[in-house]
């Protein structure tokens, strides 16, 4: 895909068993690409509570849990689900083309 309106995030095979891959693309703060039951999401990688990288956390029941304080977010919506997180994180639509994932360029 060479459309300049989209930026390549990663290959699906790049995503480790944890289901989370930290990706940086121009124009965005660091992202966490998440795989949940065969669907793919891109969310802000930095926890809205502390300066922690969510991609080092865990996925459980469609939620991502921060490794630092243990707070959580629903991956599909970015809404906080577990304290101490109370502020939503950004989520972005992901486009899949064959084995690669893309995000709209800013």
């Amino acid at each position, binding site marked *: 895909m060479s459309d300049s309106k989209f930026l390549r995030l990663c290959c699906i095979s790049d995503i480790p068993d944890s289901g989370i891959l930290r990706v940086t693309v121009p124009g965005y703060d660091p992202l966490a690409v998440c795989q949940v039951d065969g669907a793919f999401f891109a969310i802000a990688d930095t926890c809205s509570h*502390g300066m922690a990288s969510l991609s080092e956390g865990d996925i459980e029941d469609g939620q991502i*849990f921060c490794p*630092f304080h*243990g707070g*959580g977010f629903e991956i599909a919506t970015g809404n906080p689900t577990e*304290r101490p997180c*109370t502020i939503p994180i950004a989520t972005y639509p992901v486009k899949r083309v064959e084995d690669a994932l893309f995000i709209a360029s800013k």
Partner: protein
Amino acid sequence: MERTVIIGAGQAGGRAAVALRANGYGGEIILVGQEARAPYERPPLSKEVLLGAAQAGAALVNPESVYHENSIELRLDMPVRWINSATRELTFMDGDRLGFQRLILATGARARRLEWPGSEAAKPYYLRTCDDAEVLRRTLSGRQGDIAIIGGGFIGLEVAASARQLGWTVTVIELGQQCLERVLPSASARVLVDLHERHGTRFRWGASVKETKETNSRIRLLLNDDESLNVDVVVVGIGSEPNMKLAEAAGLECGNGILVDDQCRTSVSDIYAIGDAAIAPNRWFGKPARLESWENAERQAEQVARVICGLPTTNDAPPWFWTDQFDRNVQIVGVPTDEDQMTVEPGKTPDQYVHLYSRGDVITGAVLFNSGRRRRALSRQMSEMRDAAAAPCSPAESVDSMEINA
């Protein structure tokens, strides 16, 4: 229209206002605050703010737009003079009056003051509010020197860590024989002391300040062992006291806090109390507890909102506290004590491990070092065990109430 007034625009008050709407409350909501700021998060004040990594008050309890969107009226910088619980009306310091059908007291706590001969000459700093943090940050930034911290609790240790990171020489003066005596068993407390000592902090155990000697530019603290300590800055962090004068004057039953039942109800109908100011039954302590923690403020805020909305509610998850010091995140779940058996569960890396405390087959508490991801499962497990245990296991604590600061 029915009106609920919340006195206290901190973590508990701010969250209760929003939780009322989220649970369907259709009446007027007025959030009254003594400070001029909208509710802000306190945890960063002793860490990121002192280090200059975050601005005091930048972390808000609710995004600014939330109040308008939820028709919550903020009345900030409006201290309350008194509450008339019979006529259901409160009077502000400036003489204005405000009636209510329901009242939530979220008046919080204040830093406990310490006085000793010559204490005014030491000009001790306290840390509770945004303004306190901003003043201390300015004092500590841009120069280095010697700082004495009186009290080895959460605030004392967090300030100690921040001051060390800023290059100050730090001495912690603690009356007891270990840090965080009221919350941590000694084996877990030792880990924190080791961490601080590795970073160069000195601890003076069983120590107190007898006197401040005047010197030209520095502060000379004379300790109880007659040694003296020359420092540039003194910080006092010896816990806090509940703000309950309004409640007492209004005839509400108070002890070491405003007494509430397990539904946040005070002794006067339609008046509730939550957060640092409230003392509530707690099955984990086997007696009423006043918990000064972020988590408790959150839980009780949600709970009181549900109670007012007529929804069923319980609040019996294990207590949870956390602290960040240097590169460590330490979380305490449940009520671990020295009487329990402790096992160490290692994690993925050497600095990740859990001190698991148990009595027989029942996990009574856990201290998590850089292992926040273990908290949910442990908390769940502890609740299930507690539910299953017919007789609650009573903690070996001899005071009338637990006061915990986080």
